[in-house]
């Protein structure tokens, strides 16, 4: 009996896994098809980006043919999928490199920036949200709400410029543009692509310090938006929980306010918070184009935007595929963590 029930459970799990996998595959395929066809009807000519606007027609036609643009659109897509199944995302016009190599080069810079940003956003945003909820309508709550509103509504570009003027130009606390001072460029061998980790592994503490000085400001500014969002959502979730009857019961039982808030109310919003943080992290990984522009950060967002502006569809498709995979993976992780934190969902 137990063997049968075990097999049945495994079967159910296998079916569920297969079902999810199919959804993921269909989602990614849909995303690729849509991006491919939008890319092809965009009024941007990748050939002109390569040959320049003064090239003669024979040069133009030669590159047009080399890029395969003379073939029907469905055939171009079929070739793309064929190469994709062989792990080949094509060659980026933007750089002349394989798209996979380019993504491997630019993505770590974004991961590093986004991870510090989300850590900042979460570790500042969550306590602020809880603080505001426990002081509803009072001065503390109003202050947090104003901070959240600013973080949410003031353009990140403006924050970036102001941050540079104040912390870089005036106070000399932050590094300028780029990931590191140029004097240190090339001193540390890239192992993970994450400069802080690579520098620490190599024991190059001056390089580490320079990288830290460069990343702190853009990461904090980038994290401000997430912080505002997370604080607002935390406040809202907490307010809902704090008005529940079990909270009154806990207080009647004589538990301290800290225990009531953190052990009871906060624990019940963890699942929702996870989704919020995961999606916010996904958005950051997608590329913070404006921050990357202001801080000359050689990241994913800047690469994707450059590709889009040039009509470099191999680069764009590779990036879109990666973004799709990130979001699908984060959703799957959030789903899995739901089951850990909320037994009702198992």
């Amino acid at each position, binding site marked *: 009996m137990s063997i049968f029930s075990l097999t049945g459970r495994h079967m159910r799990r296998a079916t569920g896994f297969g079902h999810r996998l199919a959804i993921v595959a269909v989602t990614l395929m849909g995303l690729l098809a849509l991006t491919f066809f939008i890319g092809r009807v965009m009024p941007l000519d990748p050939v002109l980006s390569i040959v320049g606007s003064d090239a*003669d027609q024979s040069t133009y036609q030669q590159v047009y043919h080399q890029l395969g643009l003379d073939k029907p659109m469905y055939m171009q897509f079929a070739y793309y999928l064929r190469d994709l199944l062989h792990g080949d995302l094509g060659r980026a016009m*933007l750089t002349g490199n394989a798209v996979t190599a380019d993504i491997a080069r630019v993505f770590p810079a974004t991961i590093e920036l986004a991870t510090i940003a989300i850590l900042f956003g979460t570790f500042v945003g969550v306590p602020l949200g809880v603080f505001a909820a426990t002081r509803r309508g009072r001065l503390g709550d109003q202050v947090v709400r104003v901070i959240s509103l600013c973080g949410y509504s003031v353009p990140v570009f403006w924050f970036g410029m102001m941050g540079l003027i104040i912390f*870089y130009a005036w106070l000399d606390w932050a590094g300028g543009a780029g990931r590191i001072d140029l004097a240190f460029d090339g001193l540390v061998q890239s192992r993970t692509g994450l400069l802080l980790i690579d520098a620490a592994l190599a024991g190059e503490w001056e390089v580490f310090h320079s990288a830290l000085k460069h990343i702190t400001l853009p990461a904090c500014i980038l994290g401000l938006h997430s912080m505002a969002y997370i604080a607002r959502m935390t406040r809202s979730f907490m307010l809902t929980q704090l008005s529940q009857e079990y909270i009154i019961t806990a207080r009647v039982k004589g538990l301290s306010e800290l225990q009531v808030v953190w052990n009871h109310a906060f624990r019940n919003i963890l699942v929702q918070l996870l989704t919020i943080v995961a999606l916010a992290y996904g958005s950051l990984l997608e590329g913070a184009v404006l921050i990357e522009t*202001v801080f000359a950060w050689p990241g994913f967002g800047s690469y994707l935007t450059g590709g889009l502006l040039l009509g470099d569809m191999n680069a764009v498709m590779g990036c879109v595929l990666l973004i799709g995979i990130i979001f699908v993976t984060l959703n799957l992780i959030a789903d899995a963590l739901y089951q850990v934190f909320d037994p009702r969902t198992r």
Partner: protein
Amino acid sequence: MKVPYLLATCALSISLIGMPLQAKTPTDQLIIGMSMNNLLSLDPAGATGNDVVEVNANMYDSLVELDPADTYKILPGLAESWTVAADNRSITFKIRKGVKFHSGNPLTAEDAAWSLQRVLKLNLALASVWKSYGFSAANVEQSIRATDAETLVLTLPEPTDPKLVIYTLGTSVGAMVLDRKKVLANEKDGDMGKAWLTTNEAGSGPFALNEWRQKDVLLMSRNESYWRPQAKLKRVVLRHMTESQTLRLMLERGDIDVANGMSVPDVEAMKKNPNVGIEAVKRGNVYYVAVSAKDVKFADKRVRLAIRNLIDYDGINKTVMPNYGLYHQRPVQMGLPATLPNPGYKLDVPAARKLLTEAGFPNGFKTTIRVLSDPPFINIATSLQATLALGGIEASVIPGTGNQVYGAMRDRSFEIIVGRGGGGAEPHPHSSLRSLVYNPDNRDEAKLTNFQGWRTSFISPEINALIEKAEVEQDEKKQTAMYQEIQKLYEQQVGAIQPVSQMVDTVVLQKDIRNFHSHPASTTRWREVYKQR
């Protein structure tokens, strides 16, 4: 106890982050902040845009160079000397002995011939100018050849002015000499090293490429065995920065030495800074208003003349163009002996209205202006939109990227365009006229997309014939007179491209930088640059 501990931790963190690291750029390095968005390939044959020209001019050598202070002055480069045949149909170059590439391979005339042949065989972006002189993939092995290791002979397939060809050798990055052996060692599927040269170099110039991380940083170090006196700087670093304010802050802080592509408001603000200098260099291109003569309205000379009268030249040049361009109305670049003085076109609404009425448009008409969404293009278009309205012409502005605007122009599917062009790298009237005016075949199927004259569908057999005649005229005085005649004819016939301003490029640099001379053809060389500290 907890709060002071927390404050102390915060203070320590801030002070650690705030430790000053690098106040000034190193004395032996040049740090340039610039946008690398258009730096797509380092292959000299496929180079488009000014940025890659500047980079390649420092990693490669050319046969000759044009003096940045006086571009008529042709200076020897890899070619020690050259002679033009009496019939003007061939040029013989004597190649310098003892020059070595970065790889250590010796540089010979075979390398020079192969490099030029490669441009035409691969038919990449820079083949266009050579094709206009009659060179082709089919004839290039006969017309460009090394007779021995030190002699290169260029036989001109069609009659042309040899001086023009020499100017092109000094300005076109496609004429840089490549290390044939090294390139061929990296050839794939008969691509003549095209894929490899996209991200690598095979030059003999004063600097060698260390690393290029696209849209991030490009590092070059001094070529220690350079045949000229060694470069004064040990390293040149180009950092990708697109935001003008960031460039400005980094320049003010002394973290970069040179800023390229700074916005005009920032350049204006930097003029007040005593620690920086501003260098403006005139380029050969012009900003223009172009109409399509394919459009029935603009096919009428009176309508084109009306448009010429509806441009506020003074207003545009005084308010929009400072640091972008200089007042100029001729299709030949300013400053050449053949360039006529500006005709003094002015905004004249009554005259324009009269012409429109005569042309059958007493109430004006509707049209579109395609324009790049960046300054100063969009500002010129906005001004034009307002002045056209004074003449009764209702124009809607369609902003776009360069790709979209010039793509439409190449397809001949536009009405009015505010753009920039005109070749002009060579200090020769033909360079501007070939690009802006010449149109030897006006049929759509001719697809002469590299000629902006063709793109506008404006054709004047008389002007075409005169351009061809002037190009081969050996008597300099007669040639100058012909070019002046062309400008007068263009004025009378109301050409479809009306120049408004001649392009100026502005570079902002630290005051302690010496010998940084921006070149009008973008071949700015850094080998003499140093810092006076």
